[in-house]
């Protein structure tokens, strides 16, 4: 099969970006989207041109490094996957595919399709942890935790920090990302001692970093490659309220 790629090219964070067109042929449906990009990049190199820069690493949907906005959808149109798990069999022969970076004030473009998501790390620094040191911890079975709580905490903890929730949100809100982390700890006894400070501090940094507000459209839940539920945002809101009145 063949496709026409319409790709966002931008030299660096200061420069203006433009769309450029790249025809790609001899594609097999079993190739992943990135393998198709690899093939294109190899051709660009041999032609003496600069290959398209994009972030990727594990190519199995868990590291959270990759993230492209494809035909107006984060990670493409399939549900529950990352861009690296997208295969060319999902596209039509002859299709024009529009490829853009995540677009959000808090995720400035570094080059082409690569953005700076260090704002997520700074939110985590504000409280995405239990303040314990290495060593001196009690036996792992000392505190029983209901399976149902742990399972729900695990649902939240499966967030890969890719930023699709932000990129898809019309407000560029990071509530699903932050909600997932706050919720994980809120569901576990380990998270209780610092519950109040955690939610207040993480939300404060989220706001400082320039992420927008949540208006409950639910786009993030739909586009999240790990299908993290909006309920975690609701739980964070309860935690936030609790923290503010206690």
């Amino acid at each position, binding site marked *: 099969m063949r496709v026409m790629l319409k790709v966002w090219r931008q030299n660096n964070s200061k420069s203006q970006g433009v769309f450029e067109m790249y025809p790609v042929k001899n594609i097999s449906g079993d190739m992943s989207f990135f393998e198709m990009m690899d093939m294109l990049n190899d051709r660009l190199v*041999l032609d003496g041109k600069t290959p398209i820069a994009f972030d990727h690493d594990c190519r199995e949907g*868990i590291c959270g490094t990759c993230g492209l906005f494809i035909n107006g959808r984060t990670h493409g149109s399939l549900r529950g996957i990352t861009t690296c*798990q997208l295969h060319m069999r999902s596209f039509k022969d002859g299709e024009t595919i529009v490829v853009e970076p995540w677009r959000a004030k808090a995720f400035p473009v570094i080059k082409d399709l690569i953005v700076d998501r260090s704002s997520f790390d700074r939110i985590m620094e504000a409280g995405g942890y239990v303040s314990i040191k290495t060593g001196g*911890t009690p036996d792992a079975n000392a505190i029983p935790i209901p*399976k149902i709580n742990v399972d729900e*905490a*695990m649902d939240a*903890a499966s967030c890969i920090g890719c930023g699709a929730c932000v990129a898809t949100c019309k407000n560029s809100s990071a509530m699903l990302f932050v909600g997932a982390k706050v919720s994980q700890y809120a569901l576990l006894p*380990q*998270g209780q001692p610092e519950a109040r400070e955690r939610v207040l501090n993480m939300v404060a940094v989220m706001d400082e970093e320039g992420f927008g507000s949540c208006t409950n459209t639910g786009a993030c839940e739909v586009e999240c490659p790990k299908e993290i539920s909006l309920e975690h945002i609701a739980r964070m809101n309860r935690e936030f309220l609790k923290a503010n009145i206690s």
Partner: protein
Amino acid sequence: MILNSQIPGGPLAEKWTKHKFDLKLVNPSNKRKYDIIVVGTGLAGASASASLAELGYNVQAFSYHESPRRAHSIAAQGGINAAKNYPNDGDSIFRLFYDTIKGGDYRSREANVYRLAEISNNIIDQCVAQGIPFAREYGGLLDNRSFGGAQVSRTFYARGQTGQQLLLGAYSALVRQMKTGKVKFHPRHEMLDLVLIDGEAKGIVTRNLITGEIQSHAANAVVLATGGYGNAFFLSTNAMASNVTAAWRAHKKGAFFANPCITQIHPTCIPVASSHQSKLTLMSESLRNDGRVWVPKKMGDKRHPSEISEDERDYYLERLYPSFGNLVPRDVASRRAKEMCDRGHGVGETGLAVFLDFADAIARMGKDTVTQKYGNLFDMYKQITGENPYETPMRIYPAVHYTMGGLWVDYNLMSTTPGLYILGEANFSDHGANRLGASALMQGLADGYFVIPYTIGDYLSGKLGESISTEHRAFAETESDVKSRIDTLISVNGNRTVDDIHKELGLILWENVGMAKNKAGLEKAIESIPKLQNEFWNNVKITGTADELNPELEKAGRLADFLELGELMARDALNREESCGGHFREEHQTEENEARRNDEEFSYVAAWEYKGKGNPAKLHKEELVFENVALTTRSYK
């Protein structure tokens, strides 16, 4: 130079406790006077950085990723072992030690492995305290499952995402220290060389991957936790950026490289589909708990599996190994799969695959239970292959997964270069010739949380008052070497892309230094790899410049090192005239095609010393002494 492993004396079970007492300490108020560089922020690097900072040291952490959470530790699926014996099934520290030594085919150090087993329990406690949502039973206590190479259930897990959860746990400890300022994190910085002052590791030179700037960083000690080198094969289960550069640069500066040929080929991966393939995807070994491996009895049988009746199937692992069945160690399972395919029983279009069938498991436990245990793995398989494993058996084939070899370290995890410590997969230490499943996470975290915080003090305590500055000429010299290498790479301007040459290296290694090796093949590899090195330095093409974000340049630098490593892998394999664990020499096998070790001659760690460009590396031997286990032929029958 005689290798001194620094293994403490005394009974096995008391060595670590005694050693911790004997190690010199740095008093709390002096710790802040020391700077430590940690390269790599995966499980080992993040846990080390956080733990060292908590103790009071000033840590500079480096990663070529944008965030510590991207490290490939995140992709480990199945679990982490510990000798908790929660299931009351007869586990103990000694049994975990014994299984790991035996699983490693008696090519690891007793003292290191025992320490690992001892520490395993602390790791689980630590991780639970961090809020890691390990799987639990209805009563609220932790659940365990079984894994290859063991007859007890000792594996703790968080769905099929255990590595992710453990890494996020270590990352959470790390960001907490970043917030306090005790850890300065340098994202998107790649270490391109090690800096030695008077023969000791005192800094590194990095390239800022966004601006291309070459920078020097000084410290009192350097810790490398930079992972394995499976990507030498091009196709592997490693992440795309995983590489050997930091370790190889250290090797060329004097650190010995141990057992480079011993590679783990993981039995349960999704088979190669086409030549455009960029990586291979692992399906967790935990699948072998409930999945049954089989091939058609008839050669070249291309019928749909549903049309092949029970008596036409060969459940070869259950047939050959009745007591371990589908749960034999990885090396055994991989080699048997290759053998079945080589004999013409392979399935799928290429004939390079075997079935992993869940029909019995679904009938026994119900689809819901299977979904709960393996749902995400099944989804992943379906996404990649377009087939539904609930209905059609999975097709699997072995793929390069983990490298047991790595930089040589002593019991303190210090390399042959003083002041240079190696943690996690980057060192060679604990897995011998074959790593058991769910042991990589255990080792990475043991090294980072519970070994290096003790052992590094012993070295640093002798350096009180030592002030290292990047003004020292060693930094300028190293920077200049790094820059000229980059300039040379860019100026080649040949006709082949980096990936094109890398694929050629991968093929040479896979065919000759992979699952089954022989003398002729290894000699062929030793002859052809230098030619490919030459081809690379004369015909590679990289566009763009050195002072911008340039992924092709990054890949080229890594490939240059893989090309040198590949040659050493072949030389090491040629030297090791025996079969052990993941290293299988066709000349050395039993009549039943099992690996035949040669304990008389090869019960040693092969540690290679770099002797300069164009000169063969020099072999040093660390003899392995077994006082607590009897060397037997591994049997899983």
